[in-house]
């Protein structure tokens, strides 16, 4: 299997006011294969968002390297990275009069010229992205009129329009109601298995994602990251041990 994302001896964290560097956890070395759906989970403050910021080159790693599709991102231009990785954030997008179609069309920006004129091919890709996420009916709506679930679909459609092999989603299920959460996980699963997208997303909805993902990345403050398939992690109660749970919660949910 081809490695789509590889973190090598990656150390992440922030420098404090006295320029002292404090890694959030021991160095991370993990990788994702093409077409895998992987969930990153762990308590708040464990560094999930920080890791995403480093992978999407919004933040520099303290040490180590990030490879996307075999290329070290430190050597790539912003445009080259835009063609490899797309992101879906928790930030609310939608200033006054921003149309759904325009937001999804912005996914084509890395490929268009100075005036962002869309070619026929661009339009086909945008329509297909809207179709895939079930956001086609929203196309003419304004962003500010959407529900949280609809908004999430639109942002995923934008990421699809960007046409990247790797998609990163920061807590995509956070503000959704139960049915929307299930629909979202199923959509992500479909994108990974049918369209061969490599998808990494963070989530707290462990019970819901457990049976759907190919792999889990577990994070906890100052502990080394633990990676494995759901089955591996459930066996020997590795998962529970990692989060320091003494008792066994209802086995049925895991």
């Amino acid at each position, binding site marked *: 299997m081809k490695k789509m994302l590889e973190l090598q001896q990656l150390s992440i964290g922030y420098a404090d006011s006295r320029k002292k560097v404090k890694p959030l956890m021991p160095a991370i070395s993990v990788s994702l294969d093409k077409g895998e759906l992987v969930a990153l989970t762990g308590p708040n403050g464990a560094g999930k968002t920080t890791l995403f910021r480093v992978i*999407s080159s919004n933040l520099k790693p303290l040490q180590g390297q990030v490879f996307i599709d075999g290329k070290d991102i430190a050597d790539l231009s912003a445009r080259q990275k835009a063609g490899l990785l797309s992101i879906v954030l928790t930030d609310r997008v939608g200033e006054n009069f*921003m149309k759904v179609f325009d937001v999804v069309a912005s996914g084509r920006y890395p490929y268009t010229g100075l005036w962002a004129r869309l070619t026929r091919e661009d339009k086909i890709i945008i329509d297909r992205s809207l179709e895939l996420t079930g956001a086609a009916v929203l196309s003419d709506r304004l962003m500010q009129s959407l529900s949280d679930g609809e908004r999430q679909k639109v942002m995923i459609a934008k990421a699809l329009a960007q046409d990247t092999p790797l998609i990163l989603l920061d807590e995509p299920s956070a503000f959704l109601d139960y049915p929307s959460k299930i629909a979202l996980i199923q959509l992500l699963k479909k994108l990974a298995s049918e369209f061969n997208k490599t998808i990494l997303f963070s989530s707290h909805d462990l019970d819901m994602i457990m049976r759907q993902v190919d792999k889990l990345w577990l994070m906890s403050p100052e502990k080394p990251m633990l990676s494995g398939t759901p089955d591996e992690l459930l066996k020997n109660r590795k998962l529970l041990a990692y989060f320091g749970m003494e008792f066994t919660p209802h086995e049925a949910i895991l």
Partner: protein
Amino acid sequence: MFLNLFLGSVVIDSKEVLNAILGRATKLDASRLIILYEYRFPQAIVAIFAGAGLAVAGLLMQTLFRNPLADPSILGISSGASLGVALLLFVAGSFSGQAVVNLGWISTLGISMAAFAGALVVLFFLLLMSARIKQVVTLLIIGIMIAYLTGSLTGLLRFYSQKEDIQSFVIWGMGTFSGVGRTQLPYFSGAILVGLIAALFLSKSLNMILLGNRYAENLGLNTKLHTNLILLLSGYLTAIITAYAGPIAFIGLAVPHIARNLFKTSDHRVLIPASILSGAVLALFCNLVARLPGLEGNLPINSITSLIGAPFVIWVMLRQHNESVFES
């Protein structure tokens, strides 16, 4: 535009104005022709470019900070201009022992230069700051602090300045579209035009920035560079216009909202031309009101822009609000 030429405190027959513009024989006497060519025509042109420039400068700020209350003066660039003028008046006044206003034409040009210099100093400082900080909100707060700082310095300087100079400072602060003489008109218009065209070239970047900086970055935009470009451009337009026309309030804040509401879009490829157009029209209209026939001389533009603009913006917003309620 035409009404701006026709109307004024000196009555000129409208048919004759047309004749004069079209280069036909006119029965106008020399003094009326001078009023037409030397005053009304340049004033109308300045109003067009100043209105358009301020509108675009305001739009750039609102997009950069994703804040509907941002305007060209929010980063202290126009207060920097004010400080420049106050400093000139104070220094010149205390060294020569004479009020600057008594120096004739040098004073008008001097005030423009001082305002421009003051605005540039603030702009330069902001760019330096922007290189050091990560969050655009921090930049906004620093800008607002600079505005307060320069404002209080200006107040102190005014306190120690000559009476006549305070008068001229107050007049400059009221704003005017008649501060650009015919000889300087081409330079002024050209400089603004360059800025407006440059803004058009930033449309795509502005659209990306409107999604948020991280999305913009992910779409391949060098956000740091473009933040600085936007700052530079907005500051450039504001500095030039403030230098010549004084700190004109409101147009930069209101016009982007008018443009968004009229054209129902957030796409800068539409918004920038729309702002240019709406800004020019609003400024011309304000200029017209400021010197309606029957009024003695010109009223201060600054009062007029808000007087006309504020109710108009409220109306536009309410209209949009009603529509969206109706839709849902």
